[in-house]
């Protein structure tokens, strides 16, 4: 029975995630721990597998369209994987209640970042090894861009990786704004490149959890299958459901989960 409940939850998370451009982990970990009483570290291991699967599946589309900047992605991955390694080790060592508390704080950050009005990006000078280009599918124009502020980008990438390995989320909520607003990448390229990094980062964390026996088939198999189905359904539904409505639903859900996770941190 639990099998089908898990598949159902994962399908919904996959649909919401793919339609709103957020990873599933931010929803999956709270749902597994709060409603199915999955231990938090097992939930994180399960979620990391789902994040890897989602990233690989969407990357197939992004790479084919040429949005991904592999050179920049690989450079920033040095920082995200180191962060994920540190985060994964931390997750193994600290108490479950501490993880609940940090998770609640990150959920609040996600809420704030969704409400924030985006500042105009600062374009960087084109023409370096990390510069990129792609064809805009809406206009058919070739978009060429440069990449700036690499040291700061690396620092934020480390933090994003850390959050990923510690909490079992993708960390796109940190990476996309950093690449778009700080480093000057167009949003499309930033989303695709962030997605590429998420796969490698989450895999680094997942390898630690897998080795520790925290990726249990009874949770990971149904959720991985469900999230793949959901991620396929999401783009097909996107014309039929208003993104505005979906966004509100997501925000309310995040707010409720933030409160619940905070309560768990205080042992309530």
């Amino acid at each position, binding site marked *: 029975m639990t099998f089908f409940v898990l598949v159902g939850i994962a399908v919904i998370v996959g649909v919401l995630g793919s339609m709103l451009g957020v990873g599933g982990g931010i929803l999956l970990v709270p749902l597994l721990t709060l409603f199915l009483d999955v231990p938090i570290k097992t939930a994180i291991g399960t979620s990391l597998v789902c994040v890897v699967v989602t990233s*690989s599946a969407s990357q197939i589309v992004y790479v084919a369209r040429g949005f991904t900047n592999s050179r920049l992605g690989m450079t920033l991955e040095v920082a995200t994987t180191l962060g994920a390694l540190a985060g994964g080790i931390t997750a193994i060592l600290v108490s479950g209640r501490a993880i609940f508390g940090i998770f609640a704080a990150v959920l609040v950050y996600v809420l704030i970042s969704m409400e924030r009005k985006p500042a105009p990006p600062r374009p960087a000078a084109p*023409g370096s090894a990390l510069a990129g280009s792609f064809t805009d599918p809406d206009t058919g124009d070739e978009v060429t861009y*440069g990449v*700036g502020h690499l040291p700061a980008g690396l620092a934020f990438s480390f933090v994003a990786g850390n959050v990923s390995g510690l909490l079992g989320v993708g960390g796109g909520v940190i990476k996309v704004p950093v690449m778009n607003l700080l480093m000057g990448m167009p949003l499309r390229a930033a989303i695709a490149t962030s997605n590429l990094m998420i796969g490698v980062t989450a*895999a680094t*964390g997942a390898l*630690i959890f897998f080795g520790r026996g925290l990726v249990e088939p009874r949770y990971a198999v149904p959720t991985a299958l469900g999230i793949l189905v959901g991620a396929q359904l999401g783009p097909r539904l996107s014309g039929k459901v208003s993104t505005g409505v979906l966004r509100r639903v997501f925000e309310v859900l995040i707010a409720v989960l933030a409160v619940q996770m905070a309560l768990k941190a205080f042992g309530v």
Partner: protein
Amino acid sequence: MSDVGGQGDDVDGPHDEASGRYGEAAGQARAAAIDTVVHHTLVAGIAVGLALLVAGLVLTVAGRGGLAVASLKVPAALRAAFHLRAPGFYSLGLFALILTPFVRVVGSIVAFVVARDWRFVAVTSVVLAVMLVSIAVGAA
């Protein structure tokens, strides 16, 4: 090129001639080749992982082991799969899915070597090394 070697890669610097080193057309052809490698790796990884998980479910339905078992280490999983026990397939399938980005990184290194792009061979190798450390930490 003053920035070879990594230190102080001032990517937003004004040196436009930097792109000359990668030669517009040649650079784009290389990038396309790397993207193709990445693409095939991802498709293969997901296909193999999914196939193993589905095979596991079929075996469970056939009464050859359930889901409610702790995950197996790779050697034990291989043995179980060899005896057509479902838990072996589940653990191997999940491992294949997790390993997909790892194989993708290895593929990128090969692609950068072929392109003689040594700086990115180095960068990508560091990423691979960190992933190997995480495998070691998990196994420890």
